[in-house]
């Protein structure tokens, strides 16, 4: 019996595409002051990572769902890689996750949860790439632990791969990537598609119009 052997291979070409324009992107509302400054510094140049509003909400809701028990959560970032003016960037459209084996300091996909994960990949509805992963550090702030760095080195070692770390208790989020052997912070933007609600992170109140009924004032005697 011989071992499996490879008889052909093909790389996926990177398509040219403009990143989301300025009027359809914003900073994440949980960025700390330093990260917000870095975000503002790249507004003109653009970012290497854009996360859709949908994916961001799923990550935040997932992390918040177990924050009272201080359990970590984790999932995969689904998206694509594009190139614009010679610069590559990753666009995260959605996330996929499943049942987890987790504690306050460790998280993995449950061995019995793999088929549920695969079902979400099958149902993604687009030809995705796994452009990174996210996980939470409930109450521990955002950083890359030795285990996280090991995972990044072993699985997500391309320049475009990102690790998003979120702390739902401190309300912080940060993305990281590997630059050679060093872990670096990666400024990122939240984007939305044209048909989505652009008022990310803001309360929208209806403007009072001239014909609107005036509020009834109580008579004072």
């Amino acid at each position, binding site marked *: 019996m011989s071992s499996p052997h490879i008889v052909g*291979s093909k790389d996926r070409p990177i398509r040219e595409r403009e990143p989301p324009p300025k009027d359809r992107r914003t900073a994440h509302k949980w960025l700390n002051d330093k990260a917000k400054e870095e975000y503002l510094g790249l507004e003109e140049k653009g970012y290497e990572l854009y996360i859709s509003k949908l994916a961001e909400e799923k990550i935040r809701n997932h992390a918040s769902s177990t924050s009272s028990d201080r359990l970590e959560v984790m999932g995969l970032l689904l998206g694509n890689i594009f190139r614009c003016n010679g610069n590559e960037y990753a666009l995260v459209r959605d996330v996929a996750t499943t049942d987890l084996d987790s504690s306050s300091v460790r998280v993995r996909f449950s061995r019995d949860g793999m088929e549920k994960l695969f079902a979400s990949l099958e149902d993604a509805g687009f030809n995705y790439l796994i452009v990174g992963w996210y996980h939470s550090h409930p109450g521990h702030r955002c950083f890359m632990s030795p285990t996280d760095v090991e995972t990044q080195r072993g699985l997500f070692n391309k320049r475009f791969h990102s690790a998003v770390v979120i702390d739902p208790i401190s309300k912080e989020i940060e993305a990281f990537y590997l630059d050679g052997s060093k872990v670096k912070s990666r400024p990122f933007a939240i984007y939305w598609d044209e048909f989505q609600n652009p008022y990310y992170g803001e309360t929208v109140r209806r403007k009072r119009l001239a014909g609107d009924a005036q509020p009834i004032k109580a008579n004072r005697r």
Partner: protein
Amino acid sequence: MRNAETGSTVDMELEEENTVQEIIEGAAGYWEKDSGAYVLRKGKRLLRGQQTVLDAGIGNSDDLELIPDPEGG
């Protein structure tokens, strides 16, 4: 087989007795990945390491995908 992290694909020649573990090792080696950190899927089904090509029902022109199995801490 497709590498879900890069979109690269490889065509592999298999024998009925080859195991899923050997398939993962072959592809992971080609893409310079740690085979222990990946799982293999065929559609929604997880292919288990000790299953053979015959047991797993892998046929000609089946699309398999190598999926990362991360650990966070």
